[in-house]
């Protein structure tokens, strides 16, 4: 396996407050879960290296505060992100209906026109579900995003959500490479195309 980093990707996590953005990140990066996750102020970030089809990719994942008042502050950090995870809480209908606003926000402030978006319905371990999987899927289809349901508590879908997103970013031409990386990418694509298809299927990712 090649130890050198293929590329560094910037990924955003956005969505209403309390939907579990920081918990998702915590689960993905540290594999920990804290029912009382501290409330993010402004933005925070975590790094993780992942290995995808034999290539190491460094992720800088920016976690943002969901509170209305922070929305004047956080979009500055949307700059140059290649991927965005839009999180809602399946037990709170409102957090789902607000996704539209978050998409607009992303449209307005992201500097890359082909940024890859993924809609994540979190907290599926909870019983009082208000948003069906189907609704989430429909929304994702309408806005041409990836879709997955997850639970930061039980780890369901967390790993997959990030991997799926990264995979898609890597497959999007012109989104991430710099000049000297072009050749690397060609090699990468050749080796990963088939696997990409498969993993996309098994994860239930929707595009």
């Amino acid at each position, binding site marked *: 396996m090649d130890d050198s980093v293929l590329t560094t990707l910037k990924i955003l996590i956005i969505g209403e407050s309390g939907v579990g953005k920081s918990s998702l990140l915590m689960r993905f990066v540290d594999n920990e879960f804290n029912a009382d996750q501290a409330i993010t*102020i402004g933005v925070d970030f975590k*790094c993780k290296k992942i290995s995808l089809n034999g290539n190491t990719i460094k992720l*800088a994942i920016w976690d943002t505060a969901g*509170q*209305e*008042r922070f929305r*004047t502050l956080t979009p*500055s950090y949307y*700059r140059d992100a290649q991927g965005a995870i839009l999180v809602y809480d399946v037990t709170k209908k409102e957090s789902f209906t607000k996704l539209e606003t978050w998409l607009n926000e992303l449209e307005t402030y992201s500097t890359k026109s082909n940024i890859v978006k993924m809609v994540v319905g979190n907290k599926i371990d909870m019983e009082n579900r208000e948003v069906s999987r189907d609704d989430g899927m429909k929304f994702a289809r309408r806005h041409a995003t990836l879709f997955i349901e997850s639970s930061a508590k039980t780890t369901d879908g967390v790993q997959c959500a990030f991997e799926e997103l990264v995979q898609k970013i890597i497959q999007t031409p*012109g989104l991430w490479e710099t000049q000297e990386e072009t050749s690397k990418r060609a090699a990468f694509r050749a080796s990963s195309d088939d696997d990409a298809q498969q993993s996309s299927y098994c994860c239930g990712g929707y595009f």
Partner: protein
Amino acid sequence: MSSSTIQEDLDEDVYHCDFTTASEWEIFIARLEEIIHEWKLSSSNANLLKPLKPGQLSSRNWVSKCENIMFADFQFSITRYSLTNEDDGETPESENLRDNDDENVKLQALEDMMHIDNDFIPVVYNDNISHPHVLARLYSLREFIVINPSSSAVAKYIAEESKIKILLSSICIAINNCSCEVPVFIQALEPWRNFHLGLCEGRGIRAEFEMVHLKKVPQDCKHLTGLLNVFKSRLGMMSGSEGEPVRVSAKFSYSLTDWTSYSWSQEPPNFELLQGEIGVEELGTLPFGASMEPVSELILHAVWPEFLETALVDSQAYSDLEPQRATNWFLSARMVDEPACLLSEYMFEILELCRSQHSMHEFLGDFMQQDSGPPLTTPFDVLTESKVPNIGKVIGQSFGHSRRDRSSRGPISNDMLMPILYFLFPDADNSQDSVRSPYPETIGNAMNREPNMAESTIGNGFKSAPIDGLVWRLAVVMAHAVHTLGGTKAAAHLWYEFCQELRFRWNNGIKIPGVAPGFPDLKMCLLNQKLQMLNCCIERRNAVTNAALASAKASGNSDESEEEEEEEEDDEFYDCAMSEEDVAKQTTVEKSKPIHSLWNRPVGRLCRHGNLKLLNSDEFLYIPITQEATPKTEDQIDEDAEVLLNLGSDIQGSELRTQLMSASLLSDIESFKAANPGAVLEDFIRWYSPRDWIEDKEPGEDGSVKGTLSSRMQIPGNPWLEIWSVAKPVPARRQNRLFDYTREAEKVLHRLDLSQPSDAARLLLCPLLHASLLRLVQQALPIEMPGLISAIKHISSKAETLFRVCEKDINRYAEICKEVAHAEAMIGQVASLEHKLCPGTGQTWQMKKFLSDLVVEPEVAVPGGPHSDIGKRIKSMFAEARRVVLMTNEADQDSSDGEKSKSKSSGLHGAIFPKPTEKEFILRVRAACQNSFLVMPHRLTVQLGPNGISMAGCFSQDTTFQ
């Protein structure tokens, strides 16, 4: 050729089955056969293919396979050329073709050779390699094999006749052994001669391909009559003997290089001539097109596809082959290599400036220092003035001031500078009633604007500036300055004036026109962001000033409380604009509910938060007036992000980040406390993060709402609790400013002031490239040249990516500019050809196709032939060029009478057209000749050009009855 004896020798060897003593020659033949088998060319029952349709020989793709072959130590390469059979769904039912006509035996190669639909196919030379292969043209072949000395061979070519003969006999043996019916050629003599000899054998026919090159053309070979004699005598046909007459195809080429009045070029805008009258048109538009005639030569090909030798006469004394009477006309256009084009020149000059090492000071020197102290207008001055002065007046004075001071010492003269500055800052121009070149209103709301055709072609992914906005205009004007107004010096001067104007506007609180309102748009280029930032600063300061003025006015009018009077101007504090209504509302609140003691009065309320009431009192919960968000440009955001990233991704880093990010939270809490005396954290959370306030299902006994904070908000020592506990009730306008507009504005101005000419050029590079691509598309769209638009799209997406990743290497941009230049040249060529061949507007689709084909194709049929409008136009061009030649000749005659007779004769030869530069004939006949009684196909292709005569003949004979 004694091939039969060779055959026997070889047979003997085979019988002995001992190859150890095989000669080099035998090895060569064996290898040749092996290759022929490998390429599957040995099937003798191959079906006869359908004749090719007109032009297919050049329009279809050619494929070639290549192998190495050694003859002793001499390396040859053997290449098979064949036309792909990408047929239009037609099945090659070919058996019939052969069977129908049993009378004559047919070989594919010879049938193709006798077919007239692919005569005179154009051949393109690229690095001395022709495409399609020159043999395809000489014999109309669709498949053949060429053996030539390989590029790594010691000797570059074979010249000895004996060697040529050995090779040819080897071929003869090999193709006979394999029953290969594909003609095989060897290339002899110097490669540039394209001298090929070849052989094709099968079904009892042997066809030999011969060639003759003569530098000096024999007198009787200059005309068809003589050539017919040569052809017939080679065939052993007596002239006048019975048998099929020879069928002739002819093509005469005429060159035109003297354009006289049909010449076409474009001039760059001449600002000297327009002095004082420079309009928006000239300043705001990048020039486009070829500045020199981009077409170097037009060649007319008059073609007679086929006629019998008896039908037309072409002899030394008389010729029926007059171009006007030709059946078809074709046209070729030769282009000037790398023609001078205005737009790309502009671009390359700006790129040059990007690389410049010179400093501003080198260019401007004293001129800059003299003016370095801008008139200091303190905010206080503005305050004390009774009325904000008329914008136009102030700027007018400013420009006027500079004019007086600088006299004409700047590289750009004042006469030129003023229109430029008024073009960039149209609001400053109060010399006329209406603004001459206002910025489009759409700059503010690009969303509402439908992009036009050209803009949508390029897309809006450019990190540029609003189209026709200030930065856009500056970029275009800068390009003009570099090109026409004095080069780098002028650019430095323009940049300097631009910076001066920005400083003036900041000092006087006048907003910068031509940039979108609001926060810096990160999708735009850095310069545009910086200007937006400057505008934000100007706006904030003006708001503060106005609020101060208003409050001063209010305190003068009514008896206000001490508090309002305390509101003196101090840069250290954040000031919110507070309308009089607010003040009034506040006072009524105070009057109706005198619950607050003087020290604890609510301040800085924006509005009620629904009907929510404070938890611990009967007061409504008020949303406070808060500090506005801080605008940032991308470089600042990058710096901030860098700082955050450098804190590391561990817990400590996270905590430090939280502290850094808490400034705005603290400010909001303080405002909240000030607006809601007696409020608790729970109240704040209900406004700020309502999901962290969990209401009890049942309301309390008195109907009041009860609830608790979410568990995560209750974590002991969490930042929210801590900040709440330390925050004091301070209204936003008394808080420390989160956004220091003075500092930020100075930072922007300083950054721009310090830019060297190359920095300035780099800042403007993207808008300029964007503008030029847009210009390119605008010019390209009406031409409808296939592939051109997609090529431009490709260029722009490449450019887009470069700007996105902030590519520093100027060479990468130069590559883009080269592609722009290429596209521009093509458009220039089309324009020039249109001007020459079919001027006027509203070209038909057919005409557009003709013009764009002329640019990319080697030869294009003139639609309608000699009698069409284009045909007439071509005739008159030739006629005019002819007149010029005759006129100059006449002038010469006056001095030398001896030339008279000669020029007269040339004058007689065609009233309009000059002598053909090249004549080509193809002579074909199916005839029995020499000893054979079978009718065999024969062909002779003749090229008569300035480099002599070249004849390529194919003569077949009967091998059965030889």
